[in-house]
């Protein structure tokens, strides 16, 4: 025997955990502590049947919390105080004695908590939490009706299992309904509150400017920058192009969009991929270096192969790209060469001296690059992300004093030195590396892989040079962390999140409809005979109808003629006498005699002579029995012979 309170309590705590779980990280720290403590204490209180709070104290505390957080609410801060209050209300409810309506309150508060979490994040965990919550609350409500009626009710395990099985029908039904609503209803593709009010925290990773010497420490951020569905590539090919920086003012590199016709790409091997960007405030469209074109998103492209979206990427987007691995961009003759040779006047004499030495050694631009690379190697520079040069002349400090820095130091100093050597140079910002998920067949590129490298114009072609590779510890500090390989668990989790983004978050009914329309147009082009989408639609409808008919016939075949007659008879009887169902323990004749319906008795006798003998029904018998059923339907109860 099981007390009805036991499964009800278990379900309630499950529902509360599901409500508070996704919200937990967003709560204030004291509230987190209270919530966690209340959850544990609540279970203990229920077990001992002794409660910490009386109803008066609970009401007083509720009011207190409510007032405290109401005072914090302003136009910029609405959701966070509200979720804190919700969590606190739930905590207080956990610590007080629970009667029927209190369970109902806890269910409602948990549901609100889960709903509130979707304002802050559209994490993949939301879906399982929601499904479990719907199941938990509906089954909980069924148990609650029993509990409310008789709190001391005890059920046998078998009864309880039947009750739970029956109650499970409700959530299954509501989940099916949810599936339909998912397709039909519009929804937001980004967490509403967090998108409207982006956090003011500094974000590491890719930025529009390169400014070495601003931070003493570069903090790695493991959040996903984008994912790329592509075949697995060699590590040295994984350069993701974002922007090109042309102009240096002081120590800040900025972009000046180059004007002019598009340039040709020579050499290299063509490769296709699909890139998915999460919602962002930027407009950069990343591509595999060196990109040719992208499609599937409204964009503009500059002649240095930098792609920008025309609109801000406020929701997740996917686009297809085509690149040439190892390709080089040709520079036409009429161009502003001075733009790529400009250097700040504040460069130290030591740097200028190095440049002069190299320049005097050779006239060949490619030789000068080699000499400069040699100089970098000789300096024994190391790649690091802490204890960085922070001064007004970071390049000088980097090259001669501290001899440590991250990619921006390497790229910026290398570019400036090349420019001093009269080699046209620019910086390229983007990402380098990526973790390949071979379950999903895509690369995950995280913010900590942001990278800057150099492009130098040699023999009228822009060639990629990555000065960070010249660091003495390049292999261990630069390259190794960029391709560590993911554990199976991480790959699976990330694969699920990728699927979640592609299928759920990016789901757009309009897009699906457009796809159907687009397919129709394509079909018209491919098959000239097809005049419109109507013909294939008609064929499809006929096919569906045919399959339905076949299934119906097959199912009909499976039921014997006696079975069909019996079904029809039972339906007629149920309808005529307004019954719920026919008792399974009651014989056909016995039941007809109970009804005292002469037609039913006749039918029962007639059909029994086939049901319980080896005799088979003839068409005449079937007809006669059907006529009897018709008579049962037609004859009103009043006309019956008593």
């Amino acid at each position, binding site marked *: 025997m099981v007390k009805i309170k036991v499964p009800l309590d278990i379900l309630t705590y499950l529902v509360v955990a599901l409500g508070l779980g996704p919200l937990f990280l967003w709560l204030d720290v004291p509230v987190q502590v209270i919530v966690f403590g209340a959850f544990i204490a609540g279970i203990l209180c229920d077990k001992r049947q002794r409660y910490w709070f009386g109803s008066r104290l609970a009401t007083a505390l509720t009011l207190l919390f409510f007032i405290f957080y109401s005072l914090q609410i302003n136009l910029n801060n609405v959701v966070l105080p509200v979720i804190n209050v919700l969590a606190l209300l739930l905590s207080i409810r956990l610590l007080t004695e629970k009667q029927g309506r209190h369970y109902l309150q806890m269910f409602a508060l948990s549901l609100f908590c889960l709903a509130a979490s979707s304002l802050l994040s559209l994490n993949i965990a939301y879906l399982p939490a929601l499904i479990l919550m719907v199941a938990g609350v509906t089954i909980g409500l069924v148990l609650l009706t029993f509990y409310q009626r008789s709190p001391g009710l005890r059920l046998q395990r078998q009864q309880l299992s039947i009750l739970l099985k029956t109650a499970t029908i409700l959530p299954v039904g509501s989940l099916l309904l949810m599936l339909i609503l998912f397709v039909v209803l519009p929804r937001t593709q980004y967490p509403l509150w967090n998108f409207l009010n982006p956090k003011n925290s500094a974000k590491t990773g890719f930025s529009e400017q390169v400014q070495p010497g601003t931070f003493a420490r570069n903090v790695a951020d493991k959040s996903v920058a984008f994912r790329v569905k592509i075949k697995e590539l060699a590590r040295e090919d994984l350069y993701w192009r974002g922007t090109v920086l042309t102009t240096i003012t002081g120590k800040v590199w900025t972009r000046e969009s180059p004007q002019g016709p598009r340039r040709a790409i020579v050499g290299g091997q063509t490769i296709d991929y699909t890139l998915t960007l999460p919602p962002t405030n930027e407009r950069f469209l990343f591509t595999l270096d060196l990109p040719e074109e992208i499609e599937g998103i409204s964009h503009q492209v500059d002649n240095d192969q930098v792609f920008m979206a025309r609109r801000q990427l406020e929701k997740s987007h996917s686009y297809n790209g085509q690149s040439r691995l190892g390709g080089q961009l040709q520079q036409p003759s009429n161009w502003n060469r001075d733009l790529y040779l400009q250097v700040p006047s504040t460069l130290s004499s030591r740097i200028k001296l190095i440049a002069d030495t190299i320049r005097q050694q050779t006239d060949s631009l490619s030789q000068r690059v080699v000499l400069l690379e040699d100089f970098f190697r000789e300096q024994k520079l190391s790649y690091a992300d802490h204890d960085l040069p922070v001064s007004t002349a970071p390049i000088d400090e980097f090259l001669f004093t501290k001899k440590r820095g991250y990619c921006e130091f390497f790229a910026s100093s290398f570019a400036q030195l090349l420019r001093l050597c009269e080699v046209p140079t620019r910086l390229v910002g983007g990402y380098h590396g990526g973790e390949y998920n071979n379950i999903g067949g895509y690369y995950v590129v995280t913010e900590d892989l942001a990278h800057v490298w150099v492009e130098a114009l040699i023999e009228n072609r822009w060639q990629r040079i990555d000065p960070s590779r010249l660091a003495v510890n390049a292999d261990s500090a630069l390259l190794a962390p960029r391709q560590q390989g993911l554990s199976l668990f991480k790959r699976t989790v990330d694969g699920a999140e990728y699927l979640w983004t592609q299928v759920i978050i990016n789901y757009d009914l309009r897009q699906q409809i457009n796809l159907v329309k687009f397919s129709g147009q394509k079909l018209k082009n491919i098959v000239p005979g097809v005049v419109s989408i109507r013909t294939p639609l008609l064929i499809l409808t006929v096919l569906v109808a045919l399959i339905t008919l076949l299934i119906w016939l097959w199912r009909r075949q499976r039921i014997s003629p006696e*079975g069909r007659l019996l079904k029809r008879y039972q339906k007629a009887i149920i309808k005529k006498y307004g019954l719920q169902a026919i008792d399974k323990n009651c014989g*056909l004749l016995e039941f007809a005699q109970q009804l005292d319906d002469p037609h039913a008795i006749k039918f029962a006798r007639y059909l029994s002579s086939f049901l319980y003998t080896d005799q088979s029904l003839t068409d005449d018998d079937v007809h006669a029995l059907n006529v009897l059923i018709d008579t049962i339907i037609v004859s009103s109860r009043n006309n019956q012979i008593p």
Partner: protein
Amino acid sequence: MVNQLAKQREILSVIDTLSGHYLQGKVRALRLAMIALLADGHLLLEDIPGLGKTTLALALSRALGLSFGRIQCTSDLLPSDITGLSIFDREQNNFRFIKGPIFNHILLVDEINRAMPKTQSAMLEAMEERKVTIEGTSYSLPHPFIVIATQNPLEQIGTYPLPESQLDRFLITTDIGYPPSQLEKDIIRDGGIRNKMIQIQPLLTLNDIELAKQAVATIQLNDKLVEYILAIAQASRGHKFIAAGISTRGAISMAAAARAAAYLDGRNYVIPEDVKLIAGPVAAHRLILRPEHRSLNHREVLLSIFNDVPVPLV
């Protein structure tokens, strides 16, 4: 080929005549007695004295035109009082077997629970074997042969209640019950019918009964019904109130009785209702309840089993 409903009308007319003129209000008991006869079984009437148990047996034997024997059981009744005994014939100078009352078509054993177990056992054995062996010689009992035993369930002193294993030998156990008030008034006014018994003329011949029994044996019992009976037997075996459920012999008895019931209803096939109809009289007395549930009514327990087993339809 045997006519599957041969002599059914005649059998029914016996029931109608008896219940219409002589045994008013005893149709059910009469039908059950007829089922027992047709299914080649024996009948135990359990009721208080004075409700017409003996009358029923007497009337039946006369209407059927069968020979009738009667034993009034007492505690000093010996097996030989039932079976008969050998006596020395001085003229012939040898032993001569004198047949006891058991050598009749219908044997009324009144108050069977008053006989001592040894006598009960000898009689029940003869019922089952349909022959009597005395001093090395076997004597077959007449055919058809039916024992109609009676016992008073309320009497305790000086009785030897039939053990369950012996009860199992009776195909049907039933009560008779009081007649309806109006009928009882008539009986009180007109007196008993014992005197009228002599007027009852045989309605059937021995051959008729034989044909009817053959017909009953050919009544169709569909596989669905066999499964139904088995399901009920199995359900009784696993029932929480029951120590020993319906045995295989019990299930065979149910099938035989259901056939006879179908025959009486004018059908050459058995339907689940037949099984339900005979289940109480045929199976209830075979259930051995657990000690803690002894006070429960056997029929109620059996009914609960029927409520758990769905009737076969398609």
